[in-house]
């Protein structure tokens, strides 16, 4: 009899322990699921890889500090390979299968444009890390779409302002035939007319090209006072080399797509003196200590470079801003897609790596031309342009 009793006691104790265990399990809050899609492999991996590294780093940091209001952050990362069909499938998966609260990415303009109809229909906030302005315009058709990279038009304006301040008015442009290069070409032509600058040569090159001498020969034959090279692919580093070989001495301007120190390294000595607009991330060391962005930039740069042993690029910074915007919204409003969207749309004074974001229903980018600094290459390093 007593033996039986003891047996029952053990069983009851086990049951009690088990129920206690399960109850503590259920008490733990459900993780917040966020999707991330980047061109991690494929022809645009130089964009996607730093972006992927960055978001992984943020998730580790956030979860190590106890998550968002006690909820762990679960990031589901998908690779687009820079391919539109794959991106469409990946976004469908994130929305329908993983049921994510928001999506960060894609890396490229084309892949972003391909998934905008999907997120608009499914009503999921998407914070793109791609450049083209059509991603957030017209804004009434981009209810659920935001982007963190600075505007092309602002980069163009900064370049033209600098050219004009030097008393020049005739420029040649050479652009890459990618979505980024093409969008830049359109903006350059648009603002040249408005700002009284004449484009005397308009050349293009393919992303896989290895020699731009023919195009530069044509430009050399014109009376251009400066050359603007607008591209985001590694091929852009060949232009300064070819210019040097041809003995061209006119100043070379690059776009914000030059914002990876690897490009300056690829250009080598020929890259010295290149002028380009970029976010402040690349010149954080030469920023004054009281600059509002200094703390964010310095922290990101230090964390990233310590962890991955490679220099930060502005592209990783776009993903940094995008994911922190989502985390910021999750902290404030919790797991609700519509509330997250509304929160981002009304977010003011968000200090990111790309600038200080002031979103509004009319502006889903939130940055102005002040987000850019004019930088130059000096001894294979990016520094603030002094004049």
């Amino acid at each position: 009899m007593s033996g039986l009793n003891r047996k029952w006691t053990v069983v009851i104790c086990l049951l009690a322990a088990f129920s206690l265990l399960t109850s503590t399990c259920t008490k733990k809050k459900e993780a917040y699921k966020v999707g991330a899609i980047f061109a991690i492999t494929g022809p645009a991996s130089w964009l996607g890889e730093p972006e992927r590294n960055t978001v992984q780093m943020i998730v580790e940091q956030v979860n190590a500090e106890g998550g968002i209001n006690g909820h762990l952050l679960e990031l589901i990362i998908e690779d687009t390979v820079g391919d539109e069909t794959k991106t469409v499938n990946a976004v469908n998966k994130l929305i329908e299968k993983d049921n994510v609260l928001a999506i960060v990415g894609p890396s490229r303009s084309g892949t972003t444009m391909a998934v905008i109809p999907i997120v608009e229909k499914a009503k999921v906030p998407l914070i793109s890390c791609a450049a083209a302005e059509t991603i957030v315009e017209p804004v009434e058709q981009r209810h659920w779409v935001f982007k963190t990279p600075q505007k092309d038009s602002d980069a163009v304006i900064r370049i033209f302002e600098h050219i004009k301040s030097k008393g020049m008015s005739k420029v040649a442009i050479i652009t890459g035939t990618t979505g980024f290069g093409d969008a830049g070409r359109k903006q350059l032509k648009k603002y040249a007319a408005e700002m009284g600058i004449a484009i005397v040569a308009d050349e293009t090159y393919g992303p896989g090209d290895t020699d731009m001498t023919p195009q530069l020969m044509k430009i050399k034959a014109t009376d251009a006072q400066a050359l603007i090279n607008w591209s985001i692919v590694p091929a852009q580093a060949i232009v300064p080399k070819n210019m040097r070989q041809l003995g061209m001495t006119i100043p070379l301007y690059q776009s914000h797509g030059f914002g990876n120190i690897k490009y300056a390294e690829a250009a080598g000595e020929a890259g010295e003196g290149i002028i380009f607009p970029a976010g402040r991330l690349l010149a954080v060391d030469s920023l004054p200590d009281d600059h509002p962005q200094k703390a964010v930039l310095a922290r990101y740069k230090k964390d990233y470079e310590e962890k991955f042993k490679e220099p930060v690029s502005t592209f990783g910074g776009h993903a940094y801003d995008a994911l922190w915007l989502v985390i910021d919204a999750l902290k404030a409003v919790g797991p609700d897609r519509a509330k997250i969207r509304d929160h981002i749309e009304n977010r003011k004074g968000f200090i990111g790596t790309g600038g200080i974001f002031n979103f509004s229903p009319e502006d889903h980018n939130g940055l102005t031309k002040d987000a850019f600094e004019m930088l130059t290459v000096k001894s294979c390093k990016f520094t603030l342009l002094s004049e």
Partner: protein
Amino acid sequence: MGAKNRISLGVLVGGLVLLPLFMRNPYYIGVMVFIGLYSLITIGLSLLMGYAGQISLGHAAFFATGAYTSGILTTKAGFAPVPAFFTAILLTACVAFLIGIPTLRLKGHYLAMATLGFGQIVYIILNASVEFTGGPSGFGEIPRIQLGSILIESQISRYCLVWSLVILVLIFSLNLINSRVGRALRSIHGSELAANAMGVNTSKHKIQVFVLSAIYASMAGSLYAHFVTFISPSSFDLKFSILVVTMVVVGGMSSVWGALVGTFLLGLLPELLRNFRDYDILVYGFVLLLIMVFTPEGLIGLIDRLKGAQEKRSLKAQAKLS
């Protein structure tokens, strides 16, 4: 059509009807939609490669012609999607006909080079004619297809549309193969010289099947444009041409069923491999390698071989019994 083909077709249609009942998640249906689009192209390529023995590394160009014609006509010229669909077919057929006359005189590697060159030319045109095609940025806002009162917008409606078309194309192709034209095509694959000597108009038949495969690709292109509603040149590069050829080769060139098997495998594989994260490409390559090493005639060859072995076994068993 043959009893075997009828059974296979029945199994396919049955599977396609039952599938949405079990897979309710729109994501899976969406993957099946893309497999359907690819199938349209690979069925045509299988006719061209497997039956007529001609290779094409430029089918992305016909896919692009369909997509861009539909896209431009509906967004800029005010066409409805359905008439645009047929205009695209007509235009693609004309382009394929004109390209086919000189290129199909070539053989082997030269034909591969010529079609590859054609594909690249179209790709460059799409990139360079910015005013017309939107250039490298592409263009969006392509309207969705309206069939009567039904707007083809949900994944399931796309699934029904694209797979109905695949079944129609498949029935047409199977009938073609088992007709006089089909026999003529196979004779070209066997020996063009012998076929000519037997009075088969080889150049005519080669161009016919080339144009037909281009038309299938154009259909897929038009549907792609209306489904995704955004197109840019990067979807129509050499990589795409190689992908569809790989689908046909992996599945097996000996029949159109091989093309379908290959399309299913290579269409599903990237989705199934998502769990492998960064290693998905490695596994993908490994699977392709295994298939090519162990079944150089394609997966359909493996099925035939298994069937052959089974028949042999049953014959042996019968022999033992008697």
